């Protein structure tokens, strides 16, 4: 901090305003544009779902749940190696682990959207080349990718294990591929429903409760109706009641497309059941995305 020596008093009026160049540099690289912004936001959101780039406390829950998702795969490989028999079937994986997937969806989707709404930072995102639709797509893609990872990693681990153990008979490649293809539908349906519900409240706790409430309600209503309809002998109606649960809805699509055994252990409505289930899943996804677009059109203005 060296004071410059006092200048001798100038006789004439010197210029009073001076712009100093203190070395700020403008960005002169290539402008990467909207597509790149979308990819960056998607990547950042996906990292956020697993708590990467956040403190350790944010990583506990997602990695704990991802670890629980791996447990059946590990047990299954151990069974194949030691007992020489198959454990859990590939197509039934998501159906059996549905509670864990639902908890993951509920725990992580509010974290994806709630803080931005709560701190009203959407205008900051929108001052960049991306639009509200881009924001919604990025958040949905991140959640769907996270669910897909949660399903595809254990399935693939189990398949590699099966190949390495080399059980007698051909490997169940078709079942593995069917389960992998169905995971995409699981990811899209669960991701869009979870993010859509979570986006309606800026409070994370309430968002978690709302998402899990929708899952628990659908599974409980489906369970009660199946039990009661079976007991009064309306078997076909009971098969339809399974579809109220979103996990069995997707499983019914898998059952129809790939002819895999049903995870409900009871079968699904024959004939038009499969196409109706696929249609219902697609309608649900479209409804959720539309709701999100409307929600963010409003939120961006506030």
């Amino acid at each position, binding site marked *: 901090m060296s004071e410059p020596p006092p200048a001798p008093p100038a006789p004439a009026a010197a210029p009073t305003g001076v712009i100093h160049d203190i070395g700020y540099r403008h960005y002169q690289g290539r402008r990467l544009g909207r597509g790149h912004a979308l990819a960056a936001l998607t990547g950042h959101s996906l990292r956020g779902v697993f708590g990467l780039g*956040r*403190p350790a*406390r*944010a990583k506990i*829950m997602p990695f704990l749940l991802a670890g*629980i998702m791996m447990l059946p795969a590990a047990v299954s490989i151990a069974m194949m190696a030691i007992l020489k028999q198959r454990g859990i079937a590939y197509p039934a994986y998501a159906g059996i682990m549905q*509670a*864990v997937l*639902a*908890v993951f969806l*509920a*725990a992580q989707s509010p974290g994806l959207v709630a*803080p931005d709404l709560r701190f009203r930072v959407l205008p900051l995102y929108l001052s960049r080349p991306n639009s509200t639709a881009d924001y919604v797509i990025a958040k949905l893609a991140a959640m769907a990718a996270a669910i897909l990872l949660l399903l595809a990693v254990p399935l693939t681990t189990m398949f590699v294990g099966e190949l390495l153990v080399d059980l007698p008979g051909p490997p169940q490649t078709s079942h593995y591929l069917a389960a992998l293809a169905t995971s995409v539908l699981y990811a899209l349906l669960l991701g869009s429903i979870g993010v859509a519900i979570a986006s*309606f*409240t800026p*409070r*994370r*706790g*309430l968002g*978690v*409760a*709302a998402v*899990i*409430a929708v899952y*628990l*309600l659908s*599974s*409980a*209503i489906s*369970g*009660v*109706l199946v*039990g*009661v*309809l079976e*007991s*009064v002998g*309306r078997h076909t109606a009971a098969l339809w009641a399974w579809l109220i649960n979103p996990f069995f809805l997707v499983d019914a699509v898998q059952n129809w497309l790939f002819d895999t055994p049903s995870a409900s252990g009871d079968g699904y409505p024959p004939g038009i059941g499969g196409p109706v289930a696929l249609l219902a899943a697609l309608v649900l996804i479209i409804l959720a995305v539309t709701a999100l677009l409307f929600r963010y059109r409003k939120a961006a203005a506030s």
Partner: protein
Amino acid sequence: MNAVVAGITYRAVLGRRRVLLMVLLPLLLIALALVLRWVGSADEKAAVTLMQVYAIGTMLPLLGLIAGTGTIAPEIDDGTIIHLLSKPISRPVIAVTKFVVAASMLAVFAALPTFAAGYLLLRDEAGVAAGFGVGALAGGVAYAAVFLLLGVLTRHAVTVGIIYAVVWENLVGRFVPGARDLSIQQWAQTFADQISTSGFLKSSVAMGFAVPAILVVTIGSVLWAGHRLRSLSLTGEE
């Protein structure tokens, strides 16, 4: 118990979107009971299934979660709890007040609709309606206390709560019989079984265990929550 704090808490819980969820859950229970009557299977077995799977197994923990954490967690999240804590009110009194508010919500939104749905299906038959009403009340009080404590202990109260309700009580409890001893839902069913004479309801926990368990858990949770409030630190989110 402090009437002003109680009034503010009631307003906070009932005045937001939270109340929509709290109304929706019991409405669905009544709707399901009506559907069961309509398909003509309003017998004792169907009623007990509805009560076990929906009323006690789903609605009660969800409402407990929303009411129990909702009375205190949003305030801690916002940091507005500091205005409450800086008043000359003893912290255990605050905890007790919040607990009373949450428990009364559960009585109104969980226990009453449970009784109403049972009554719609069976009238007074075999004491199913009264049994599950009392069971939901006892379970609701315990849930309110436990989730209130969770709300004070952690920022992730709702997530931890659903892991307890979904993974421990429903998933682990289904396969490991010992886990049912530590399940509030099972204690609620024990109360229901005690009053009801229905043959379709079999509780897996003895009354001699459930009563002290509910008392210990409820009183212990409220006391611990009060104790934690005395040294609450407000740190940033995550």
